[in-house]
């Protein structure tokens, strides 16, 4: 009973915007009087209902409507590198090779992109911190403005070694790490895998990454096989992620208003 109140309290602290702090001491006092309910049951129940409702449907945020095969094709997402640059582990995601140029299978990309956007939406709905990472200098400004437009964070500069793994020492104790890292390009400037992918896997942080035909998709939680070099493709990804995150956050505000958790602000 006390443990349940404690976990409820932690959940409430982490996710609820109304900052309900159910003190564990309250549970202890009521242990001997089972007929008396623990404090603030309604806020916790409503929060749990808000958090569990999106999990009932496979595509609660309808992210599949945001893009179509034609959009991906027109943004040149299917174009891969040359055959000699191909990574062995990307072969399942390739449709074929035409005159030495790899073509990425857009049918698979559609499925993977839908999964990735759905996951991003759920994370944003639950108030998670999302970090956009890309080491491509060509798209650094675009990624940073995308992050700013959806109220999340971006890191497009040199990645210091202990950024995630040594965060408590580098940034002070009790630092909150991102809940999701989105890689618009999984390679750094010397065509090696970005350090952030390995570090996120070490710290149990899920990653979404756009993997081109020369990238290693193994450590990425939600790989999205696609072109990461053409400006049109990267603009498409940024637009899709921004729309998903904004949609999820708006939905969360709507649900809270619906259940009367927060006062409506005009």
């Amino acid at each position, binding site marked *: 009973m006390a443990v349940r109140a404690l976990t409820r309290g932690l959940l409430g602290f982490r996710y609820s915007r109304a900052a309900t702090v159910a003190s564990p001491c309250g549970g202890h006092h009521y242990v001997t009087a089972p007929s008396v309910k623990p404090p603030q049951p309604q806020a916790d129940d409503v929060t749990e209902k808000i958090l569990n409702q999106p999990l009932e449907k496979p595509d609660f945020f309808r992210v599949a409507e945001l893009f179509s*095969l*034609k959009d991906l094709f027109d943004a040149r997402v*299917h174009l891969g590198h040359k055959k000699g640059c191909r*990574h062995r582990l990307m072969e399942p995601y390739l449709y074929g090779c035409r005159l030495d*140029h790899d073509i990425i299978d857009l049918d698979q990309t559609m499925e993977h992109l839908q999964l990735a956007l759905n996951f991003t939406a759920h994370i944003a709905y639950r108030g998670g911190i999302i970090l956009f990472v890309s080491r491509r200098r060509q798209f650094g400004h675009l990624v940073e403005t995308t992050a700013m437009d959806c109220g999340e964070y971006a890191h497009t500069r040199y990645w210091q070694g202990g950024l995630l793994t040594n965060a408590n020492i580098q940034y002070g104790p009790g630092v909150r790490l991102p809940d999701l890292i989105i890689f618009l390009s999984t390679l750094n400037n010397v065509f090696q895998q970005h350090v952030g992918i390995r570090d996120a896997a070490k710290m149990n942080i899920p990653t979404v990454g756009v993997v081109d035909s*020369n990238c290693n998709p193994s450590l990425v939680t939600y790989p999205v096989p696609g*072109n990461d070099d*053409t400006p049109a493709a990267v603009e498409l990804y940024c637009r899709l992620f921004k729309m998903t995150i904004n949609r999820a956050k708006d939905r969360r505000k709507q649900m809270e208003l619906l259940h009367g958790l927060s006062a409506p602000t005009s």
Partner: protein
Amino acid sequence: MAALCRVVSGLRYRVRLSSRFLRSSFSSDSGPAEGPVSGFAAAFDQQEVLRRETQSSAAGPKASSSGPELSFAALLRRSPLIQMGPAKDAVVVGRVFRVVRDDLYIDFGGKFHCVCQRPAGADGLQPGSRVRLRLQDMELTARFLGASTDTTLLEAQAVLLGPLDGREHQSRD
């Protein structure tokens, strides 16, 4: 012969129409009222109907060719990049999207852009102007000694032929 092959393959994918409909399009042959029409006659009738359908749908909203029914394979096969064939010495039209002193960054619809030197007299080439290019390579890659994968320059290579005809004396404002 090619028409017959196309007609036969069309039969495999299309739904068979009713025999009543097929018989109505027959003008000269007065065959028996019962019994399915088969062979070349059936195929001919079916193609007539399909042609009439495409004509009527072309007059109406054009959703058949560019709608969501096209698969990725069909889109790819009909795309200009595939229809072009080998990139060596192919003449394409590109668009300048960035100018850095004498270097023009030109995007022609491939994965990468190409960088060309501005020719001597062409000062009218601004960001947004369209040019003609002769492609040499869609992506500059090479395998060096001791490497397991190719090293790529993330650029295409093309020779600038000049501005698109008819726009030489126009400037974009």
